[in-house]
């Protein structure tokens, strides 16, 4: 497989006289293979938008290496820009122009045929409102226009920073099938989003970033498998036996969380050992289910951003990867 997007050890430091330095990207790595739909996940302020802006030449990095479509950046950016369509965090458009004018001007600047404008307007569902001024558009309509502007070039690589922001449920579903169609047609899509259910549905692989460093990456099922950590749900015939069972299992080295009517176990290799351990004590298991984790819980665990009752987590409180760059 060839990499369409490669980032190694990318660093971006913001300096301000008042607040000192902030390492928005701190040795970040990322790799996206051709033809994939790749999810780019991370808590607020973890550096997703910074990464994409840097890739697109809007921000100058302080260090690291980047390549798009096999060409080194930023040197080759003008050469590859025609094949990379992007929206970066709810893009704004000149409010007094219509969608058609906006796209028409972009198409002209990119030397594209005019009929392409109508094609993408149709594609994102703005055909009938394309003559109206952008100022009068709703949030989701602006977002659709943004996606249209990214699709205009018919790019090889499509970079979408939170494209579902403001879309209605139907719009989200349409976006999902659009991504699938585009990927099927050979386009590589990089998608940053906080809607993890969506990501799990449409992405082949993901990169998870926290505080400017990569905390996990790979195909979605591998990431899920690597972090399901043998979670098992146990119910007993008698709820009153739960404390005793919990005690027994934790003494056997299993991590146990006691819930109202069941136990959640973690780090279990063979569920059979659990039923044997309990049966030896005369405790009878009525249910023993390995729990499939979803991307959301893996994300929360990896980034350490799961809400804790009674605490208000602040931004920048998430997993910090220690060690050298690119760890």
């Amino acid at each position, binding site marked *: 497989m060839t990499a369409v997007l490669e980032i190694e050890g990318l660093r971006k430091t913001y300096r301000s006289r008042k607040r000192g330095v902030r390492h928005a990207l701190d040795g970040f790595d990322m790799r996206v293979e051709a033809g994939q739909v790749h999810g780019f996940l991370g808590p607020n302020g973890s550096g997703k938008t910074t990464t994409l802006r840097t890739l697109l030449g*809007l921000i100058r990095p302080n260090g690291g290496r980047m390549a798009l479509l096999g060409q080194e950046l930023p040197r080759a950016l003008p050469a590859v820009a025609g094949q990379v369509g992007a929206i970066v965090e709810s893009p704004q458009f000149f409010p007094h122009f219509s969608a058609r004018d906006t796209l028409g*001007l972009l198409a*002209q*600047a990119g030397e594209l045929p005019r009929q392409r404008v109508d094609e993408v307007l149709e594609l994102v569902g703005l055909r009938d409102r394309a003559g109206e001024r952008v100022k009068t558009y709703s949030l989701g309509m602006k977002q659709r226009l943004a996606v249209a502007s990214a699709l205009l070039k018919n790019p090889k690589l499509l970079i979408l920073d939170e494209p579902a922001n403001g879309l209605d449920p139907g719009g989200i579903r349409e976006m999902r099938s659009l991504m699938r169609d585009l990927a099927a047609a050979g386009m590589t899509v990089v998608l940053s989003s906080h809607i993890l259910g969506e990501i799990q549905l449409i992405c082949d692989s993901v990169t998870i970033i926290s505080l400017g460093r990569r905390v996990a990456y790979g195909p979605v099922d591998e990431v899920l498998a690597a972090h399901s950590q043998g979670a098992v749900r146990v119910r007993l015939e008698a709820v009153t036996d739960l404390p005793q069972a919990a005690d027994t299992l934790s003494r056997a080295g299993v991590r146990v969380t006691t819930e109202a009517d069941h136990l959640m176990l973690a780090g279990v290799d063979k569920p059979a050992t659990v039923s044997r351990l309990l049966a030896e004590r005369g405790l009878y298991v009525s249910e023993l289910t390995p729990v499939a984790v979803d991307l959301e819980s893996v994300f929360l665990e990896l980034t350490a951003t799961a809400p804790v009752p009674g605490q208000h987590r602040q931004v920048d409180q998430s997993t910090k990867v220690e060690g050298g760059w690119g760890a």
Partner: protein
Amino acid sequence: MSLFVTELRRLAKRRVTRLLLVLLVLGLAGVATAFSFSSHKLSKEVVAAAQVEADHQYRQAVKDWERTVADCDAAKARGEATEERFGPNCGRDWQPQPEMFDPKWNLPYQFDFRAEFPTFIAVFAGAVALFAFIVGASFVGAEWSTGGMMNLLLWRPKRLAVLGTKMAALLTTVLGVTVVLGAFWTLAFWLIGRYRGTTVKVTAGVWRSIGLDGLRAVGIVLAIGAIAFALASLGRHTAMALGAAVAVFAISEIGIRIAVGVLSIPFGDRYVLSTYAQAWFMKQVKLFDYDACQFAKGQCEPAELLVTWQDSALVFGLGAAVVLVAAFWAMRKRDIA
């Protein structure tokens, strides 16, 4: 090239451009129209009528004078004091003279193309420069503040080329507007001169001089457009250029004027921008230093300082160059977020 054409189109589509162009045309047309009404051709009849009126005024004055002298004599005969009311000798020495009633004073105003059109070139340049400033600043300022610049850079990731092309599109448009409106402006005033004023002594040399004045007008308009563009791009907002312009105006025309006054610096006006604007159009401005005069020693020729249009070129050229270099340097270096 496609980008240049795109930017020309974008500029022409903007409401600010269209609105200001309409206002500019209406304003210039208004001035020309008003002016055509206030100027009157001095035909033979008008000149003759003025002569008749002057003669009449003279005769009337003589009549009044005679009556006053008579009144005074009568009063004197009654033994009243007349010195105060009628002056010595009953005002006999103040007999009106014909040359005191120049028929010129009775003539209506007549526009003289050769003598006065250069002033109107400056008026025109001022109006168009204002247009260039606002359009130039908002063209790039609005692009920055609405995110249009970022969008464009995703398509054309060559920052300097993008900014340069935008500026070229702006200056081309401003140049076109200046040349076309300037041609109409010249034609309008020539027609006013021809039919409601005078176009005497408009020789080829005069036209050449008008042409040079026009070139300087174009020069200042383009410079101001470029400066506005660069300021708004530096500040990434239209208001930045307007704010900077107001600040420079206040500092130069008010602050420096007061400071040089208080410190009584000789030739203080040479530190004021409007002196250079004036010199640019009038080819030169003479500043005098009356403080150096010692009137006690009798008549004084005050010291002089000549500010020429070449000095103005240096001042405005340097100013424009500094802002432009800063704008392009910032475009190259600064992050776009």
